[in-house]
């Protein structure tokens, strides 16, 4: 696992939050506390606390988990594999109308007594193309529940310039020039800095792509919401306006396809450049800002919402 630290970019100290102690870190990595002590002694980024010992950044630990085991069995690896399994199915099933019941709630270990003003969860954007509220979002504590019909649409980007900018970002991830990894929320909002540091995730790539396309004169925006499936997973993508429609462009899906994590068909890769899938639920989050905030600040990892979703039928 020590060598895994060479496979991703550690969070720079000025963006890191060294608050995770050895006990919790050992749980995240499914290893013993001694191993964490060794990692710290060997220079893995941390802060020394006189009472709590070495403290680590949660995002660094997630990346260590993802790149350390190398067996495809870590939670991030499995999440990618399960959430993108739909790509194995008949392409027609990517677009047909699907109805989902989605519940979003604070995690079980969130402090009791949080109010909706303190703990803000972005609601679905039911005005987005292909999204129809079957049952409008209703408050459920500080969370919400909604039933939506999502209708996808096959499409592909026609403009060569858009395609080239998109392909350049996909290529950077595929060649390892930039590493696909977890990125802390504050650095996600500084997407150009993250990219220059050589680290990117879906939020970084969607914001960067939208920015580059706008700079080239196109109408583009970064979107953020949930990828629905086994669970609801925070995901971001870019949309570009072409031929009278918003077309999603997904750098991360396209990059993950064909990697060891997720082996998808060529038709799925092509669909990532303009096709709208029937399991992406956009939320009200301009420029792909955080979906969960506490006191108007992006929620820390321990406070991220639990998202359950399941196929819904009126019957």
């Amino acid at each position, binding site marked *: 696992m020590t060598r895994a630290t060479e496979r991703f970019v550690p969070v720079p100290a000025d963006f890191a939050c060294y608050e995770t102690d050895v006990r919790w870190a050992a*749980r995240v990595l499914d290893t013993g506390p001694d191993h964490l002590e060794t990692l710290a002694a060997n220079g893995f980024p941390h802060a020394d606390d006189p009472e709590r010992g070495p403290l680590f950044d949660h995002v660094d630990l997630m990346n260590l988990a993802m790149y350390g085991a190398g067996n495809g*069995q870590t*939670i991030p690896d*499995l*999440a990618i594999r*399960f959430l993108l*399994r*739909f790509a*194995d*199915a008949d392409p027609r*099933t990517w677009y047909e109308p699907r109805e989902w019941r989605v*519940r979003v*709630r604070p*995690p*079980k270990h969130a402090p009791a007594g949080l109010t909706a003003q303190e703990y803000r969860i972005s609601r679905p954007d039911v005005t987005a193309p292909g999204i129809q509220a079957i049952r409008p979002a209703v408050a459920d504590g500080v969370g919400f529940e909604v039933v939506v019909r999502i209708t996808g649409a096959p499409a592909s980007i026609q403009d060569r310039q858009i395609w080239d900018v998109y392909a350049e970002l996909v290529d950077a991830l595929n060649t390892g020039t930039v590493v696909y990894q977890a990125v802390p929320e504050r650095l996600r909002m500084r997407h150009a800095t993250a990219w220059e540091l050589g680290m990117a995730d879906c939020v970084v790539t969607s914001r960067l792509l939208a920015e580059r396309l706008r700079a080239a004169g196109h109408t583009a925006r970064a979107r953020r919401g949930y990828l*629905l*499936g*086994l*669970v609801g*997973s925070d995901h971001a993508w870019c949309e570009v306006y072409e031929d009278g429609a918003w077309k999603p462009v997904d750098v991360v899906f396209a990059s993950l396809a064909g990697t060891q994590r997720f082996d998808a068909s060529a038709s799925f890769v092509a669909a990532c450049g303009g096709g709208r899938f029937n399991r992406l639920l956009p939320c009200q989050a301009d420029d792909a800002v955080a979906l969960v905030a506490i006191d108007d600040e992006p929620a820390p990892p321990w406070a991220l919402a*639990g*998202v*359950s*979703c*399941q*196929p819904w039928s009126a019957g």
Partner: protein
Amino acid sequence: MNDARTLIKKYLDHPVLLDHIDDEDDLVAAGVDSGEIIRIALGCEEHLRRALSDTELAELTSVRAVSRLLSEKDTPCG
């Protein structure tokens, strides 16, 4: 249903949580986190010795759903 509960408990950080979850309850809404759900899905795949389909994964939301899935292995073909 016992097989399903045994499998789910194996993947919970705090197995006692399952004692407070009814068969039809939504696991995530009842406090099972996404990492645990993912491990439960992996456990089902290992039990059945095959990959779950996208539809099966999406429907894996309760103890009863897990039980329904696991019972496949006990049902003779033909």
